């Protein structure tokens, strides 16, 4: 305890030097914290979306795989379609266990709709994705005219538990649990309900068309048979489809590959940056500690002449390293967490990220990890000085000679 008091006193009497050292550690901890949040958020969104989707292969209109990925990863609204007759052909391809079409529609940012959201229509007869979510949450399948909404979609206050879509209020029969994917902002319904929307006056007024939903699909979600390679199935579909076919099959990983690549390159850049910063901070701290210790040899000589063992002298030096690491690390993590929480929305838009993970438990765990690294770096940097002090002859210390 007394060594900590002496270490604190020493640091307190040299505020400029102390705050400079704390700043180095602060920079390291803050960079580590922020970059970890960015990378983790990207990775977890990709993982959660892939898991939530539950499909091995996805069939989308040719050249629309980018829009599909953006819809899944960034939550961008999409409404591409193709003729549903191709679903039968796809189902018949070798290795396909289940194939189910989904139809995507987007609502308008206008008074006729509650909010601009993604509408997803599915076929309860063949569906194996949304049906399984509903079963997991003990939610009955929506009937014609009913919808189920993601956790982030709020029902209209005026209309009770309902949502206004193209001037029609649809009852919301269930809210799905939060998944931290873009499915949280979607509205789910059967093909029959989608037909009701597409047959509405407002739809016709807006798009000047009366589509028949039974003839349309935006995507076909495919689950493959056990023991079959999903790449082979996607290749088979693309090979066996007619040349006139408007669709292409992709594995889930391929669809998400751009996001995965972006995540990987961000991870690579941040790793390089953090490594450089780590080396820089260690070198800077070692230099400052060494210069300071050389200025303080007389002080250590005085303490040893009064009976302080070399172990206690080392404890003082390491104690200073600990205090600097702890203070810098704590401030770095705390400031980063506050910045993330306050500027979450701005950062998400600026960095084109689907979402930022700012859960309390996650930030606490990450903060503890970054604080630990900051402490290790700072104590390691002071270790060299402590070692030099411990190896010095007492009379060298007393004379105040350079170590």
């Amino acid at each position, binding site marked *: 305890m007394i060594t900590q008091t*002496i270490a604190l006193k020493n640091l307190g009497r040299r505020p400029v030097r102390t705050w400079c050292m704390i700043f180095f550690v602060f920079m390291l901890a803050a960079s580590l914290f922020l970059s970890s949040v960015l990378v983790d958020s990207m990775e977890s969104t990709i993982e959660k979306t892939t898991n939530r989707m539950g499909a091995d292969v996805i069939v989308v209109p040719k050249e629309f795989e980018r829009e599909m990925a953006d819809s899944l990863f960034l939550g961008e609204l999409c409404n591409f379609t193709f003729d549903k007759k191709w679903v039968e052909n796809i189902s018949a391809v070798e290795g396909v266990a289940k194939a189910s079409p989904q139809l995507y529609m987007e609502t308008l940012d206008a008074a006729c709709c509650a909010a601009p959201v993604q509408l997803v229509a599915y076929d309860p007869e063949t569906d194996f994705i949304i049906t399984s979510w509903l079963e997991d949450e003990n939610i009955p399948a929506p009937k014609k005219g009913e919808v189920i909404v993601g956790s982030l979609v709020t029902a209209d206050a005026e209309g009770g538990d309902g949502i206004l879509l193209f001037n029609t209020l649809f009852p919301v029969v269930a809210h799905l649990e939060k998944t931290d994917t873009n499915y949280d902002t979607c509205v789910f319904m059967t093909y029959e309900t989608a037909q009701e929307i597409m047959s509405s006056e407002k739809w016709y007024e807006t798009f000047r068309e009366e589509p028949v939903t039974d003839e349309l699909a935006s995507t076909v979600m495919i689950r493959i048979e056990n023991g079959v390679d999903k790449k082979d199935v996607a290749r088979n579909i693309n090979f066996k489809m007619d040349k006139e076919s408007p669709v292409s099959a992709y594995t889930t990983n391929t669809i998400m590959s751009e996001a995965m690549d972006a995540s990987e390159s961000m991870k690579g850049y941040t790793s390089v940056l953090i490594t450089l910063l780590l080396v820089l901070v260690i070198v800077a701290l070692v230099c400052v500690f060494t210069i300071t210790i050389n200025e303080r040899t007389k*002080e250590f000589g005085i303490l040893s002449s*009064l*009976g*302080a063992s070399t172990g206690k002298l080392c404890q003082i030096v390491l104690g200073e390293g600990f205090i600097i690491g702890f203070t810098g690390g704590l401030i770095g993590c705390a400031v980063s967490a506050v910045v993330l929480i306050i500027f979450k929305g701005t950062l998400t838009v600026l960095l084109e990220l689907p979402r930022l993970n700012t859960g309390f438990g996650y930030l606490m765990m990450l903060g503890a990890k970054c604080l630990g690294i900051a402490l290790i770096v700072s104590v390691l940097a002071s270790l060299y000085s402590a070692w030099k002090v411990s190896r010095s*002859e007492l009379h060298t210390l007393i004379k105040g000679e350079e170590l």
Partner: protein
Amino acid sequence: MLITKQLTKTFSRQKNDFDAVHEVDFEINPGDFCVLTGPSGCGKSTFFHMICGITKPDSGEILFDGQNIEKDSAQKWAARRATDISYVLQGDSLLANFTVLENICLPHQLSSKSVDLKDKALEILREFGLENMADEYPANLSGGERRRVAIARAFVHDPKLVVADEPTSDLDEENTKIILDYFTRQAKNGKAILISTHDLSFINDEMKHYVMKKGVMTKV
């Protein structure tokens, strides 16, 4: 209390070996006030460093309370300096980051015996007329005041022997007298005091006077 037998320390300068301290026989007992004089570089500080465990002797013996201690570990010597043998360094030896009171108390708490010395420290400061300076930093003290604080620190934990390297150098007459009077009182109280100096004017019959020349010590 402390006896040295044939204590020798050899240094090398420009590839030539020389004895900084040569076969010194010395004895100090409780109540003794010993003064060691001699020119600069004659080996006084080296001798002090050896009997305080700061420098290892090359040959000879050091006996403290009948125990042979010259081969003791650095750890044991550190513990001894924190309890039985107090060493006052030459020149300014206060820690600039600590107040007067902290300078006296904190270093001793680094030893295994963590006792609260605050009351004793204030008592000694009163004896030195520095009671109002307890919360001042060394930079705000005069040279004489700083030296008195260093001596207060040497006595605060009640050691058996106090070794002071030139405690009155560069001090005016008044400060020299305050310090020597304090040493004399402590010697009368049973402490063993050993100091070095260049100033022969204050030496009196109550003191044991030793002279050192080229590492060789003789009793006057």
